[in-house]
């Protein structure tokens, strides 16, 4: 299993396509950082426009933590496409190249084969998010410095102390890993039904877009299924930045407003991962390799 995983990772990181995602993320983050560096004050004024008459904010609103939050909001919607590029290609790409039949004639069980491929896709996903964290968080901290974080929610504002932020990002990135591995698992599952990667990539994105629309529409009939859609829970990383307040409306350091929601979302995402991977194993074990 370990050998097989090493081989799968070797194959992933020897393919030029793998680095498209890393280059794309680097380009996007650099552009946003450059824009905020040049015109950050204007952006901060826009964000706090509603509160400008009732609230005075001291310090740097546009600091590394705030920039990272903006980047995560922007990118975690698009990262699934970059994940799908690799995950949805894991089986279909091999079928397309004709290497699947050679792999299957080797003394490896099909379950091992699927698990090794899925773990390799998951490791790729985690590495992509680590790269995202390095650029979005650490590089932003370097460029913009650090300060308290000021966030505008739907009908309130949150201020988190400088010293209380970093662990929240660690949690948010950890949760984002879980959400993106769910996307990888979906792409991986769909990858078995095609002999070229375009179909599964498009199908993965279509499912995500479709579910996201259902998740965001406030129509009663959809509300019944919303709690079970993984897309509803993919954005729960934001919960790390909702802080409990005391009677004086002051934030309580080290707290999360609704930890139960985070745990629930994590469990639902894990359940989806298990479902997609189990279904992948089941389908692949029955599959005739005709490519």
């Amino acid at each position: 299993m370990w050998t097989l995983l090493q081989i799968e990772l070797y194959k992933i990181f020897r393919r030029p396509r793998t680095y498209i995602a890393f280059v794309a993320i680097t380009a996007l983050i650099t552009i946003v950082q450059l824009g905020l560096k040049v015109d950050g004050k204007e952006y901060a004024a826009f964000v706090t426009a509603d509160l400008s008459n009732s609230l005075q904010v001291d310090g740097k609103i546009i600091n590394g933590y705030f920039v990272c939050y903006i980047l995560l909001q922007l990118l975690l919607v698009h990262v699934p496409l970059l994940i799908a590029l690799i995950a949805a290609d894991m089986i279909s790409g091999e079928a397309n190249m004709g290497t699947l039949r050679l792999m299957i004639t080797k003394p490896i069980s099909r379950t091992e084969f699927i698990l090794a491929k899925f773990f390799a896709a998951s490791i790729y996903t985690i590495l992509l998010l680590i790269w995202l964290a390095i650029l979005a968080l650490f590089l932003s901290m370097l460029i913009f410095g650090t300060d308290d974080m000021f966030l505008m929610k739907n009908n309130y504002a949150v201020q988190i102390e400088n010293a209380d932020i970093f662990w929240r990002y660690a949690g948010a990135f950890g949760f984002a890993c879980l959400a993106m591995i769910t996307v990888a698992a979906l792409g991986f599952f769909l990858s078995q039904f095609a002999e070229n990667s375009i179909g599964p990539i498009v199908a993965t994105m279509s499912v995500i877009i479709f579910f996201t629309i259902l998740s965001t529409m406030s129509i009663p009939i959809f509300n019944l299924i919303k709690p079970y859609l993984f897309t509803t829970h993919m954005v729960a990383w934001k919960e790390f930045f909702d802080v409990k307040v005391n009677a004086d409306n002051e934030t309580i350091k080290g707290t999360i407003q609704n930890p139960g929601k985070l745990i629930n979302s994590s469990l639902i995402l894990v359940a989806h991962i298990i479902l997609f991977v189990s279904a992948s194993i089941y389908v692949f074990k029955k599959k005739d390799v005709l490519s």
Partner: protein
Amino acid sequence: MQPIIQVKSLSKSFGTFQAVNNLSFTVNEGDVYGFLGQNGAGKSTTIRMLLTLIKPTSGEIKIFGLPLSSHRNEILKNIGAVIEKPDVYKYLSAYDNLKLFARLSGGKFDYQHLMNQLEMVGLAERAKDKVKTYSQGMKQRLGIAIALVHNPKLIILDEPTNGLDPQGIADIRNLILRLSREMNKTIVVSSHLLTEIEQIATKVLIIDKGKKLIEGSASELFDESQTIVEIETLDNDTTLKQLQQSNWKNNLQPKREHALVLKLDRKEIPQLHKDLVAMNAAVISLQPKHSLEDYFLQITSGNQHVDAFTN
């Protein structure tokens, strides 16, 4: 000799299409087993079932005396295979591909062993070049190196000469003969070309529409006393009458559309030629064929009325 592959009543259906129908055969140790049939006859489906790529609908496969269904990994450790096109990772070099598949085959092989394998198939000089720069023949040879890298007891080659030029075909043929004669490997090789199988096989199985048509040793099947000669003249009817009145009357076979057919020993062909000249027959062509070739051609042309071989 010990049986290496035992296939009993093997069938495979895809929906209503019966790709392999109640097929049984045995491959013994040291055989070069020629698996012959036209495209779509069921050769590749059978081979894919031997390699666990496709699950049989019914039937039993034993390899090295063990049921394939329950001893898959144990059996596959001792099999090397090339299935149709030798597709490998084009973004990797030949050496990297070989190393990767050697590891998957369960062995750890040093640099020298891998290079020796590439040397054997004539790719050592291009070992570090990416496979995407290789010709079809080079890819095929790399596929064979991958099949052999872990020193398997059984080698399965499905249409190994597909897409190769004559030199490439000759190279593969010589390699198969070397593996059989010098390394005593058991080899199953499929092809739709009789001439290819004729030159390497010790045993032949012909299948059509998923069914076994004939199985036997190559020496029996390629017996030269069973040569078929097709003669085409300007006036076939007159020549036929002359042959019916000659010593060749017992050799005559049912006439075909544009040719007269005789079955005879290959050594008798020069005499037949002389007699035709003596008869003043205006011969356009005189084509000797193995009876098996004739049989095979009739099958592959879709004509199931065959008497040349079975008589």
